[in-house]
């Protein structure tokens, strides 16, 4: 098991050998964001700007305007904190920058909420031309990287710090926007992204023992294909979204909008981080915020027990 940031770092260095337009803009975080391997192999294409994310976003936009495919890697929290700069220098210029936000979610643990990427998806979702990618494992990370170096659109690549289980066969192919059904079940469909997907899969055995067999869908890229996602929802009575992100503004809002737009008659529940987050051991944090395996079991059991007659129709 490796973290998606590790898979990213290796893929980046490998792809850069074939793609001479790949450059990196760094904010004093090459070891944490795993761009150090790229730096070692391609030092002349590695631009250090120091602890200055706003400037990094602008420098990357300039490199992109000149035909390069720049990757700006920093903690997702810091990088998307420069929202105004991303909006204008990248978004409104349609500059082909890859913004790489690492340390997504609670997993940074003891460093606490000032370092946690918990509202990055919410911010990036507002920009109409930005593709959001959040891989679930190493196979998908490598696949997404191949996809990313093949186009020039503004991109946000969200990566996790914690090691994640491999859920895909090595032959898996990433299709942007396509909801990725990892486990077929009935009655309830669970949408998730990134590290939380593996947590849901880990809970399947316990849930099965209680008679609950959810469909598990990895929504690893946004915007998601609304028709495809809607078709999945049609086959279920309950929709549950769980994410390592603020409960406001992230995947839950994306899915809810699609569900409402289609007029599905389903019960809908979402779970994420409801406050700013806090410092602590990652395992304790995921337990505290009920984003671990037991939390998934708890949510889906109570959801299964809920009387659907009270669900909005």
């Amino acid at each position, binding site marked *: 098991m490796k973290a998606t940031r590790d898979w990213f770092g290796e893929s980046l260095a490998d792809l850069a050998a074939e793609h001479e337009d790949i450059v990196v803009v760094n904010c004093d975080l090459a070891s944490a964001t795993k761009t150090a391997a790229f730096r070692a192999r391609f030092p002349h294409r590695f*631009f250090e700007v120091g602890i200055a994310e706003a*400037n990094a976003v602008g420098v990357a936009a*300039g*490199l992109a305007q*000149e035909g390069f495919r720049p990757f700006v890697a920093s903690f997702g929290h810091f990088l998307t904190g420069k929202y105004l*700069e991303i909006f204008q220098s990248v978004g409104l210029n*349609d500059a082909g920058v890859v913004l790489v936000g690492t340390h997504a979610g609670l997993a940074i643990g003891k460093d606490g909420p000032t370092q946690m990427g918990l509202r990055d998806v919410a911010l990036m979702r507002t920009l109409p031309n930005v593709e959001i990618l959040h891989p679930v494992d190493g196979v998908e990370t490598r696949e997404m990287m191949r996809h990313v170096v093949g186009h020039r659109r503004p991109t946000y690549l969200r990566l996790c710090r914690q090691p994640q289980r491999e859920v895909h066969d090595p032959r898996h192919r990433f299709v942007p926007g396509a909801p990725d059904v990892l486990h077929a079940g009935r009655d309830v469909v669970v949408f998730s992204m990134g590290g939380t997907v593996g947590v849901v899969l880990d809970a399947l055995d316990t849930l099965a023992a209680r008679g609950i067999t959810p469909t598990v869908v990895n929504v690893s890229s946004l915007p998601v294909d609304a028709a495809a996602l809607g078709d999945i929802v049609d086959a279920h009575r309950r929709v549950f979204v769980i994410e390592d992100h603020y409960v406001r503004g992230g995947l839950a809002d994306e899915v809810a909008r699609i569900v409402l737009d289609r007029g599905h008659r389903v019960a809908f529940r979402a779970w994420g981080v409801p406050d700013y987050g806090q410092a602590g051991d990652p395992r304790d944090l995921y337990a505290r915020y009920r984003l671990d395996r037991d939390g998934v079991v708890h949510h889906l059991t109570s959801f299964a027990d809920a009387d659907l007659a009270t669900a909005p129709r």
Partner: protein
Amino acid sequence: MQPSISYATPEPPPDDRLSHRRESPLPTRLARTGQLADRSRAAVLEMIYRAGSGHVGSSLSCVDIISVLRFDQMNWSATRSRSESDVFILSKGHAAPAWYASLMVGGDLGPEEVGTLRQIDSRLQGHPDRTRLDLVDLSTGALGQGLSVAVGRAQAKRLRGRGDFVYCLAGDGELQEGQIWEAVTVAGARRLANVVLVVDHNGSQNDGLLSEIMPLAGLAERFRAFEWHVQDVNGHSHLSLMDALANARDNQAQPSVVIARTRKGHLGPGRIALNGSHSATLTTEEYESAMRYLEGRRDESHP
């Protein structure tokens, strides 16, 4: 009222600014940029007057700078890729009419668009928007971001071994934005000699005088401390601007800043519009008076 001075250029200027710079005698060049600057001022006034809103003072303060860059100094072409020519970044995006005017006067933008500034579905957005008009090299408007992009483009050109320059025009009030100094730090440390920053130092900002709101004490010394090459010139003197920009290109060791002393609303010697205000709108009387003044200048200064 129909403008009595035409801003449309009878003959489009030569496409290759470099050869123009090399081959024409200085008095010819000065007469030409002077005339084109006055045409640009007329276009700025007409655009903003017809729009009923826009930053007259901030646009007029940098018309001379943009005219010298666009019509004499830069190797800029509407038809060539920016990766193969100089780049112009208007970091003080609220002066967009000054850039649009230079495009009209240069023949790259049709004069029929003069009435579309700030109108719905227009290419001439209130601040430059590259997604609607690719004749602007960068979308700007939220201040402080242009120099960072200039640094990125200059790095890219250096990586490709190209000799093009990246020109960035920033306002003096804009230098209060911290990101500017992040970019200044990197350009100095990396010795990006292909970056030229021109500061439109008109001394006033939205709420009033820069000296009262947040003074820029020791501006030249600050840039020198970051290892920049510094020049301080009269920003309405085309001769001074041409010299300073040539010096900037000659300095192969450092990025360059040209601190251009200007006046908000500058129309000509001793004449400003709207008392140098930042974003006040023109009355019909003020517009007509300013246009008459420019028409008179054409007869006097540029026979």
